[in-house]
């Protein structure tokens, strides 16, 4: 492998670590379409799914191009093995109830925006352009999910308890967002990627502030889950992929 190929592979791996989060979260949100608590939230959640999948297409098209092989965005989205998906465990967590949906979203959005804000400075022009476009979308996502955390937290006793439960459950998946994989490390050193470990303090400060405002408690646990970034997922992932890949696996090699 020559240097150029090595560089492309590095970038490709790095990008998958970002893009797969959007894919799996976009897929999860897609499950909710038509089942929201109101038409307005239904439309908003579908919007976020659409934004995320739009970002995924830009990333994967770029990864396909970098691969130097005859690959398409769909090959990357649909035809990998579970271990080859690099999303964090947080985004694959199920739509248990609206409290979980909002908490998962908020925990991801705060990170996502911090990431995009840094990624726009990437030396890689394509990544920088995707990030710049993404900032607008993700800012809106964070506003939506953050507002709902406040509403549910400081709404009724039931909503408070429900979202507190979701926060307690999902908290243990937040730390993985800041884990630096080898691909992350190399990309950060090359000025292409973001050192996410440096976003951690800001992230937890911001979340703590909003949870306080929402009369919610910040969990005290020191135990966190990880694995997704290395392709070791939760038991949910296989089912997500069974849906996602159904058509491509059942009818290989066809155009749709």
């Amino acid at each position, binding site marked *: 492998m020559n240097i150029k190929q090595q560089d492309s592979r590095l970038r490709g791996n790095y990008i998958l670590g970002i893009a797969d989060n959007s894919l799996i979260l976009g*897929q999860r949100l*897609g*499950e909710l*379409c*038509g*089942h*929201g*608590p*109101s*038409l*307005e*939230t*239904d*439309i908003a959640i*579908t*919007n976020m*799914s*659409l934004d995320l*999948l*739009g970002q*995924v*297409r830009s990333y*994967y098209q770029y990864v396909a191009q970098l691969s130097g092989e005859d690959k398409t*965005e*769909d090959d990357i*989205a*649909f035809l990998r093995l579970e271990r080859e998906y690099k999303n964090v465990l947080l985004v694959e967590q199920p739509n248990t*109830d*609206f409290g979980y949906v909002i908490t998962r979203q908020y925990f991801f959005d705060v990170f996502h925006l911090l990431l995009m804000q840094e990624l726009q400075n990437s030396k890689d022009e394509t990544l920088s352009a995707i990030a710049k476009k993404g900032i607008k979308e993700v800012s809106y996502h964070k506003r939506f999910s953050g507002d709902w955390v*406040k*509403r*549910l937290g*400081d*709404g*009724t006793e*039931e*909503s408070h308890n*429900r979202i507190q439960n979701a926060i307690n459950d999902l908290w243990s998946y937040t730390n993985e967002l800041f884990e630096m994989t080898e691909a992350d490390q190399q990309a950060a050193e090359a000025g292409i990627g973001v050192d996410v470990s440096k976003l951690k303090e800001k992230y937890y400060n911001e979340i703590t502030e909003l949870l306080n405002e929402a009369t919610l408690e910040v969990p005290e646990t020191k135990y966190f889950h990880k694995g997704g970034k290395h392709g070791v997922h939760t038991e949910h992932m296989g089912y997500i992929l069974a*849906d*996602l890949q*159904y*058509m*491509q696996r059942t*009818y290989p090699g*066809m*155009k*749709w």
Partner: protein
Amino acid sequence: MSEKEIKNLEEIFEAKIARDEKIEPKDWMPEKYRQTHIRQISQHAHSEIVGMLPEGNWITRAPSLRRKVALLAKVQDEAGHGLYLYSACETLGVSRDELYEQLHTGKAKYSSIFNYPTLTWADMGAIGWLVDGAAIINQVPLCNTSFGPYARAMVRVCKEESFHQRQGYEIMLTLCNGTPEQKEMAQDALNRWWWPSLMMLGPTDDESVHTAQSMKWKLKRKTNDELRQQFIDQTVPQADILGITIPDPDLKWNEETGHYDFGPIDWDEFWQVVKGHGPCNKERIAARVNAWNNGEWVRDAAMAYAEKQENKKVSKAS
């Protein structure tokens, strides 16, 4: 109000409609006009949101990213249509909650077509092509209907529906230009959706109870049978381009009438589905009721939070 005064108002009202002027929510209108519009507009709104379900069934399984995004956007459009149709309906003095209640208890109807299952990806094509195609034929005349909010909502609905229809046809075209398996999938979808689509244009004229009054109020411009013929005449050549066969052995061009003749429609099936015994009636309503019930605590929280914020503002101000 005296009988004479009412009669006078009625005359002004009828004259307005005859001059093709719009009736607006604050205008006087006969109670029957109001009730008919609540019925029709809410039925239409319900159809949009129940209609999200059969297509929503394929969002997680769409075969490509492009198709997934397009399908999500389409189903989202339907939610949007539901939203502004409910809003149009609310101008007639009924709340969205009341309308939901009518849907959930089975008092209000929605288009029967959505009680059929979506079994393959080709159904996303067939629904766009045929179901949205039939819907457009039903709906385009409503852009000129007499009730202002409905007419204005329909202008936007029709634009988007027409986009959906082309999108559906393009799915069919891709399948029909694909592998034999894909073409077979397209044919199978046409076979299953053809007759229910014809039924969407409503019962035959002699069975249709609302036609005469609706024509007068411009809620209808053509009869069900005329609309059905228009749909068939327009769709048969499209099936020919796809190279798939409409499942009607009696279908043939009639030189004399300049229309296609077609075989008998199974109205027993139609009434069975309308009366709640179609393949998915129970699932569709259950899905709506679940979404509503599961969302109750969320809506309550939003109300409670808004109230608290309002109180804070008031106490700050004082």
